[in-house]
């Protein structure tokens, strides 16, 4: 048994979400090629990877929007692979999609109300709306405004807030940094960290921006072409030569000030 396998088996005990040997197809194309990973309770786990690595497909398969061909998605020990999206939301997993995807003609308040669609407890839904407004005060200011008229950063805040309205135990965040200015990215990641600590929301965070993601995350996976190729504590990934070379753009320089050969990936 190798070291990584051992770690996964140990991790499964306190994992809210354990994905095992998941395979998902986009038509004839195999987008997820046997992925296994664990998300532990209370942690922020990030999945890094380039465009087309299968990160979004992985999230879509977990949230039930796409059906897996094979494999298990254990959520608190229950297999939710192939469940309908509304069952998954009811079970406590909410997906905050890539590119915001708000309801453009509905107001901010109506968008938030739609986040709570699966809930019946009107009183605590109102409390949660106040909670969302306390994290994103700008949304309170714009509560009667159509979501389509918000700026990109505000729409991202609305998408996260709308997700929170479902009272999730696990939040799947798909590239919250996409298309935002560095200042906004750090603001939003700050709030993501606070939500994790203060509201006890476990997060599975898919990102291309490895620096901000590893900074806020506890654990990280690196995905390439539908497979997990690295898995480690976020801090150790941040320090690893491979991640620095391929995701952080750090180049090792020789005394002559240039590189002499191209670094080879160690996992292929």
């Amino acid at each position, binding site marked *: 048994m190798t070291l990584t396998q051992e770690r996964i088996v140990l991790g499964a005990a306190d994992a809210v979400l354990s994905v095992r040997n998941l395979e998902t197809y986009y038509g004839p194309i195999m987008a997820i090629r046997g992925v296994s990973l664990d998300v532990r309770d209370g942690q922020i786990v990030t999945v890094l990877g380039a465009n087309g690595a299968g990160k979004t497909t992985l999230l879509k398969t977990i*949230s039930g*929007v796409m059906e897996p061909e094979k494999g298990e998605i254990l959520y608190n020990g229950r297999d939710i692979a192939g469940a*309908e*999206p*509304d069952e*998954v*939301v*009811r079970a406590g997993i*909410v*997906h*905050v*999609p890539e*590119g915001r*995807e*708000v*309801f*453009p*003609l*509905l107001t901010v308040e*109506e*968008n938030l*109300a*739609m*986040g709570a*669609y*699966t809930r019946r407890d009107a009183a605590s839904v109102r409390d949660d709306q106040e909670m969302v407004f306390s994290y994103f005060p700008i949304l309170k200011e714009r509560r009667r405004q159509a979501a*389509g008229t918000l*700026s*990109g950063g505000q*729409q991202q805040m609305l998408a996260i807030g*709308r997700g929170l309205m*479902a009272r999730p135990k696990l939040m799947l965040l798909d590239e919250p940094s996409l*298309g935002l200015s560095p200042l906004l990215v750090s603001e939003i990641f700050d709030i993501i960290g606070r939500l994790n600590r203060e509201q006890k929301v476990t997060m599975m965070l898919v990102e291309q921006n490895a620096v901000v993601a590893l900074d806020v995350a506890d654990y990280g996976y690196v995905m390439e072409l539908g497979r997990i190729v690295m898995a480690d504590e976020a801090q150790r990934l941040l320090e690893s030569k491979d991640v620095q070379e391929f995701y952080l753009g750090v180049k090792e320089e020789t005394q002559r000030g240039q590189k002499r050969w191209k670094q080879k990936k160690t996992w292929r």
Partner: protein
Amino acid sequence: MDVLQLVVSGLANGCVYGLIALGFVLIYKATEAVNFAQGDFMMLGAFVCLGLTNAQFLGLPFWLAAPLAILIMGAFGYGLEVVVIRRMFGQPQVAVVILTIALGFVLRFVAGLIWGNQPVSLESPIAGRDVRFGGVVLGLDEVMVISVTVLLTVLLYFYFNRTRLGVAMQAASQNQLAAYYMGIPVKRLNSLVWALSGMVAAVAGILFASKGSIEPSIGLLGIKAFAAAVIGGFGSLPGALLGGIIIGLIEPFSARYIAAGYSQVMAYLLLFLILVFRPHGILAQIHSKKV
């Protein structure tokens, strides 16, 4: 006086067109498919009510038959979505369009088999009575059509803006994928939208039938209503009603003041002009996504 009567009868016709157009737009907004059988839904609604209330058939009282017919058409729309339309998921939209055109033929044929192809009249308490406002005499049927349409519009407005289900329908039509992510049962909502447009069509049919005789081919009014929906801006509910009313008003006035050969063309001429100069319709609801 003359003009006022033209306006009222134009409005009454326009309301019927508007209600059929509303059915087109409801389904288009939710599923991006055009239900070309919408006019035939209206026809079927009228005949179901006629079958329930006319002495020759079941002979139920009108005030019981009308809501019953509306419910039956709602169930019909719901069932149609579940049994037929849902299977077309993932097929090109043309397939759904052709399917609904064929469905229209089938409905006209079936209605002809059951209720005959001769013009028949709905035995409704509204038909053939007058109301007086001061010195003006108006047909009760026309006043009824207009007031029921206004009432229905207000109800639909509240439904879509104040109820959870209505807002969810709006949400699903604006961004279906995001609706899935929020756990909104999009498939069931689509069935409900078909049910709703069946019910609206039944109301249109009953109102139309209380203004005159009906036969299975009145389903072809759907084409005019389609033009109304396009004029108003396909995808806008108030636009659909507005488009219907515009067409309804153009008809009696052009029949009155323009030579017979040309008057029937006026509605389509307007459609043509709108498509050239305001291709998204009068009340276009366009939103471009921010990236």
